[in-house]
């Protein structure tokens, strides 16, 4: 396995790093400054509501993945297992609980404040519910608000579902938030934030769609997880996020005009050999080694489903200032993991065709049944419909015990060989015609 050098960062990544550093500093000073802290989840997050009430969000999944990238998750997970959590269960949960047991030190080395509110936005993942039930017991007496997001079981969002969610927001979630914040929700301020959100969402979609070019100027999976950060977490609805996406879009279009390939941690890719669509979250414990296998082989991810866990903006959804609560409800229900399996297959098929992908790859995650259960059937469906080679690898989110570099590399190398051979055959067939 290689020992990667210091990663080469694009300008937008530097901006984002500063945004995050400021947030974590603000969080570490939250109690001293009298700021209330809300723990919540990324999919179906209600960031605009939190920020509109001058509270600060903390996302336990982000803490867990950061712990994974910083090689701390293994120890945290073992500590949670000592407490009685089974080896079989979600490692994000165990990593988060382990981190808490070890003093709740965040990614910047500063202690994260305890929550004043647990905002359980229960969207697209059953384990979220169990996770916050556990946190509620670990932080006894803390206020907890539950927002049940109905699943799109019939492949659409119904009026009944919207009404259910809006009632929960109006009568349960927002009053609890107001109680903790000590102030009423200012709907004008919320509207302004939703307007900013929509602007950032427009720009994000433009960034994603640059991957339709050949070569793609971006990697929509490995780099995509950085790009989606501000929109999916603490910055959606802010001017800062709009500014970030303006910069990012400018940077990406400049690259596109020059016909450049994506930037990787080791510099610019020289040649785009394979265009892939990927389903499933990445592994975080060995993120750079994992990415390197792809860019070393000239493989670019032109579209991914993981970058849609925080919202399917590229399919048309935008936050609407004029209908704030309805739009938040639709946003929650529209996140990728809240789609049913036929919708997910349709979306992947659409990406493969729209982004002219050579192959489809699933990174199946042991910890995440929301993504993983059903993926083998999805893979067959996609293969049948699109007639392109499909690949399947397995790893985990943040448990280093479930990342086998050699196995994954072997499997991917075979897969890329297959893709390469197929390209040769297609070229021969086209020449014959």
């Amino acid at each position: 396995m290689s020992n990667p050098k210091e990663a080469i960062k694009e300008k937008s990544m530097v901006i984002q790093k500063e945004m995050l550093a400021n947030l974590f500093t603000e969080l570490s000073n939250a109690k001293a400054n009298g700021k209330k802290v809300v723990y919540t989840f990324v999919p179906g997050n209600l960031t605009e509501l939190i920020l509109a009430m001058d509270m600060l969000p903390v996302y336990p999944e982000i803490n867990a993945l950061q712990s994974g990238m910083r090689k701390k998750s293994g120890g945290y997970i073992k500590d949670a297992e000592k407490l009685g959590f089974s080896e079989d269960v979600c490692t994000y949960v165990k990593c988060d609980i382990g981190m808490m047991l070890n003093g709740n030190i965040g990614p910047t080395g500063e202690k994260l404040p305890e929550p004043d509110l647990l905002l359980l936005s229960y969207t697209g993942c059953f384990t979220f519910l169990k996770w916050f039930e556990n946190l509620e017991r670990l932080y006894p007496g803390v206020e907890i608000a539950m927002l049940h997001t109905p699943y799109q079981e019939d492949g659409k969002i119904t009026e009944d579902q919207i009404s259910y969610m809006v009632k929960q927001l109006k009568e349960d979630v927002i009053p609890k938030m107001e109680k903790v914040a000590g102030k009423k929700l200012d709907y004008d301020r919320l509207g302004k934030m939703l307007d900013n959100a929509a602007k950032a969402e427009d720009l994000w979609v433009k960034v994603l769609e640059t991957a339709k070019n050949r070569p793609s100027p971006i990697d929509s999976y490995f780099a995509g997880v950085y790009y989606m950060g501000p929109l999916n977490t603490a910055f959606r609805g802010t001017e800062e996020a709009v500014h970030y996406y303006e910069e990012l879009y400018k940077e990406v279009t400049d690259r596109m005009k020059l016909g450049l390939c994506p930037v990787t941690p080791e510099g610019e890719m020289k040649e785009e050999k394979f265009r892939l669509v990927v389903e499933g979250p990445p592994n975080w414990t060995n993120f750079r080694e994992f990415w390197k296998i792809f860019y070393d082989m000239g493989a670019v991810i032109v579209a991914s489903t993981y970058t849609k866990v925080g919202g399917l903006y590229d399919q048309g959804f935008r936050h609407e200032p004029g209908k704030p609560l309805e739009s938040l409800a639709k946003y929650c229900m529209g996140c990728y993991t809240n789609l049913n399996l036929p919708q997910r297959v349709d979306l992947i098929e659409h990406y493969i065709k729209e982004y002219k992908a050579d192959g489809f790859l699933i990174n199946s995650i042991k910890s995440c049944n929301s993504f993983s259960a059903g993926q083998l059937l999805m893979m067959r469906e996609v293969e049948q419909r699109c007639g392109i080679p499909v690949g399947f690898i397995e790893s985990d989110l943040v448990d280093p015990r479930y990342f086998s570099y050699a196995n994954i590399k072997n499997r991917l190398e075979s897969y890329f060989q297959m893709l390469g051979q197929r390209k040769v055959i297609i070229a021969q067939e086209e020449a014959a015609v």
Partner: protein
Amino acid sequence: MKKAPERLTSLLDECKTLAFDLNFNYAKQWKAKSKYRLLVGYLPIYVPREIIHAANGLAVGLMGVGDRKQIIKGDAYYQSYICHLPRGIIEMALDNNLDNFDGFLFPSICDCVRNLSGMFKLAKKGKFSRYFDYPQNFEKHIGGTFYRELNETIINDMFKINDMKITTQHLNASIALYNHNRDLIETIYNIRQEFPWRLSAVDIYHIIRAGMVINVEKHNEMLEEVVNLISEDFGEPMDNIRVVISGSFCEQPPIGMIKSIEMAGCYIVDDDFMLGSRWIQGRIDDTTNDPLNEIVEAFLTKSAPSSAVYDVPHPKSARLVQQVRDRGADGVIFCAASFCDPALLDRPDLQKACDDAGIAHINFQFHENTGQFKVIKEQAGTFSDSIKLWV
């Protein structure tokens, strides 16, 4: 020692055969008697079977295949780290065991079962297949309204197939039948609490599981007979401890495991096997002009504790401790299916509650086709001995 009545033995044999008929012959024969009859398969844990009954349907529990069916295709649909239950369900669907079923309901238990509903849609199984998304908000005008609409959707699905409109009278009659069913099951558990040697845990498991695949009228007849038979004195008590089993609410434990626990010296006086048949705790009013409202109310206010339902308003840890006290149990065996996130994520808190209440407990994991019980038997035996000797 007075022997068990012969009729009980034959009745138990009948239940055992019904419980594990993975071709669902009884249900299919029942349906064949009228073109207006429906079969609606449902996954663990709970669906309101009353509405299916009132729509001239038979709700058939799809509780997994246990160790009764070799899984070949199912393993090609699921990765090794996903629980066993859905493999068997897919295997049955692909092997045509579920032919003649009109619809399928997938209660909101976990992401595996949720996604299985999508797999049925992709595989085009049944005339309808729906994820049954319980509300996790328990306010009547919020979660209650949503739940009512969900039930109405299912009622409409069934109406489209057999054109049978559910009347108030029909639904009240169905509610009454299932009230009686739950009363009888509770009576059996109560008798067993006092005289657990009269009916083994395996026997009661077969009796209740049989009720998942036959019509409630017939099941009630069987239960009434069982109640009568076990109300007589027979058998002899053994020097066993009394335990509650917690965690097996969805994927069902193999029969050999239940037997091993009892043989190791533990009377199982309560459990969460096939929780759906005991989900509503108490009776649903069967005399009103709006029976659907009563079903909704019952779900919101009388649901059993379960890992599938948001429990912050009513922590299940306190309810487990109360259950142990009420049943006079000596300890708890936490016994969950491998890779079952809901049960396994609940376990640390439930164990802590037991520790705080001074209740002894052990835990192990299983999957529905576990074939080796030696370790489990030894563990349960040691647990039983330690309680007998030291507590």
